């Protein structure tokens, strides 16, 4: 049995050795600035262009459709604010999103509100899927941009991005999807799915923290968030992070190659974990169960067992999970995602997210299956019903 079990891959993942290896030269001899005209600059520029091409290929995109950002949050912000600012002058002043987005999207939407835009939140089904009627009613010709998270980061629910994007496009609305959790799990191919803008993040797929990317389909108007030099066609000024761009491209390639196999392997382990926990704790609720879900995220509520105590107890047994969203101080607040899909406050406050990935072995699953029900039983002895 492993002493330590990391079940928080949706929070972050370790850098893959293959990724670290390709980045290494750029922290050493190939340190040049891609904007310089001399040999060091040329070398860096070549590496950057190549990284962009490779990432583009992994996304089914052309290389001029890829913008490197510092993280997923920057990509989401640029998608929402950049597109809205570019289009709002022409009368499209509304923005549409769901209440189950990552804070990077929700906060950007609130910023649009502060800048004079109209915020519209799509209604949700209790399953965690977008309510189609609500979506269609809100997507009108005064909407600049809409954003729907492809794979929800807390419950793993998979939205029908293809259909939503088509319906948005039909009304002239730019469709963005936060694919930070989706990439590497579902097929993300710009030639197949008609999203206009898409965000990914490096550290969820084995690249380092501090790199993300935005796909922007040709012809989509977008304003930059920052102002400075002409890097990335002026869309993202600032000296490019060559090493991390190279790392992200490599991680993305690997993710695409391994995707189908990875899905199957994760699904088997997650299903085994779910089945075992449900058989020990019959009244446990697994959010989004039976709904199309990504295979790496499982969110379980045990009625009456508060997640904060549970996470502490798990951590002290060497098992790392998470819950809700952590605030700046590190304390936990009940998940806005669960509340938005109608989960009761009590059940929401007992939710625990386990997310599987490269560090998850069969032995990890067995360890959790052994420890988790014991802790639940103990918590229930302490809390009179």
């Amino acid at each position, binding site marked *: 049995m492993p002493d330590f079990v990391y079940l928080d891959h949706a929070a972050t993942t370790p850098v893959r050795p293959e990724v670290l290896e390709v980045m290494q030269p750029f922290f050493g001899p190939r340190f040049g600035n891609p904007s310089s005209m001399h040999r060091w600059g040329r070398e860096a520029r070549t590496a950057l262009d190549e990284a962009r091409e490779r990432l583009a290929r992994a996304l089914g995109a052309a290389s001029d459709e890829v913008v490197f950002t510092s993280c997923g949050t920057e990509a989401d912000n640029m998608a929402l604010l950049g597109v809205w600012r570019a289009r709002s002058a022409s009368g499209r002043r509304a923005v549409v999103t769901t209440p189950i987005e990552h804070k990077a999207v929700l906060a950007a939407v609130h910023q649009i509100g502060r800048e004079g835009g109209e915020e519209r939140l799509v209604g949700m089904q209790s399953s965690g899927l977008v309510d189609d009627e609500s979506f269609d009613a809100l997507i009108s010709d005064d909407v600049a941009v809409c954003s729907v998270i492809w794979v929800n980061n807390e419950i793993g629910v998979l939205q029908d991005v293809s259909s939503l994007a088509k319906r948005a496009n039909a009304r002239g609305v730019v469709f963005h999807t936060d694919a930070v959790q989706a990439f590497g799990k579902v097929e993300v191919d710009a030639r197949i799915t008609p999203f206009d803008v898409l965000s990914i993040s490096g550290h969820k797929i084995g690249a380092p923290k501090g790199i993300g990317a935005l796909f922007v389909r040709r012809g989509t108007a977008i304003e930059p968030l920052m102002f400075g030099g002409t890097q990335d066609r002026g869309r993202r000024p600032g000296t490019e992070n060559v090493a991390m761009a190279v790392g992200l491209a490599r991680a993305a390639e690997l993710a695409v190659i391994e995707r189908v196999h990875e899905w199957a392997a994760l699904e088997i382990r997650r299903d085994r974990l779910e089945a075992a926990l449900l058989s020990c704790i019959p009244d446990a609720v697994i959010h989004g169960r039976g709904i199309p879900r990504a295979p790496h995220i499982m969110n379980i509520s045990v009625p009456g067992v508060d997640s*904060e*105590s*549970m996470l*502490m*107890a798990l*951590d*002290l047994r060497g098992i790392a999970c998470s819950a809700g969203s952590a*605030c*700046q*101080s*590190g*304390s*936990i*607040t009940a998940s806005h995602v669960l509340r938005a899909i109608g989960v009761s406050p009590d059940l929401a406050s007992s939710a625990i997210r386990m997310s599987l990935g490269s560090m998850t072995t069969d032995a990890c699953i067995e360890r959790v299956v052994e420890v988790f029900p014991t802790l639940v039983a*103990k*918590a229930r002895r*302490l809390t009179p019903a």
Partner: protein
Amino acid sequence: MRERVLVAMSGGVDSSVAAAMLVREGYDVVGATMKLGCHGDELPDRPCCSLESVNDARRICDQLGVPHYVLNLETAFGRDVVTDFVEEYARGRTPIPCVRCNTFTKFRDLLHKADAIDARWIATGHYARVRDGVLHRGLDPAKDQSYFLWGIARPVLARMLLPVGGQTKPETRAIAHALGLELIAEKPDSQDICFVPDGDHAKVIARELGADTPSLSRGPFVRRDGTVVGEHTGYARFTVGQRRGVPGGFREPMYVVEIQPATRAVVIGPRAELLGKGVVAREVNWLVPAPPVGSEIEVQVRHRARPARGTLVHVDGDAIEIALEEAVSAITPGQSLVLYDGSIVLGGGVIERSRRALPVRAA
């Protein structure tokens, strides 16, 4: 198997040293910082409760090689402590939220968290001592915090560790330096109530109940005989014994001697009118087997007051009455009446009222 202890850590020197001492003594220490309110940037200079304090506690734990958690007790703290605080002011009383925080938040809610992680013990940085299940004053009279601990449930005493209670504050700081906890070793003592910015409790009342709430609205200053002698801007701004803001022009200095919320009146009078010969307290909690009526007892009606001698003259449910040997000044409703026998804390209660005449001794 080392015994586990959950240490409540504010990021200050006392609780940090408490954790360090327990690590040194071989306990399996788990640090926890309670998040009791908003950790915005609005209170950057405050010694506790700020985001920086949480970060300090986390860094100290990292230095000690022990886990640290931030526990969100905001909802319960708001209900048990903050709401009571503003309601007590509305009732014309002067509450001590730290007492309720100890009773309900630290030594009840946090104890539940300790249970959840199999911690046999709970520890804090209080200057008080527990020996054989009995609560004693802190050894350093200048720092003794036992006055704030009377409300905890008696069985909890058997699980409490108060490592710094047997030393002085300078000794605590010296230990911090000796253990290399420079991050917090010279942090200033916290002065105010953690959720009251700048010590301005009226702001909190205004936020919770609205700026036009009766306790913050104009009312009369009156004498004992009912004569109106002025106007004030809210009785919640006053406490018994207060001179600041009281009208002048009398032959002797005047003090607040009573607050009458029904008429919003603040009663003022000379020092003699502050004297009480007896005190009635409610919500009484005993930390020892309840002593019989007639027992001689030492009492303290405020933090850092010299203990006064008295007799337990009446017990009625959770209410008690004490007859004082000598008159005590400014016995204030809402403050704590804490009962001592030398260094031992016998129990305490919330002061309901003082008696100006000596209560009649029960048979």
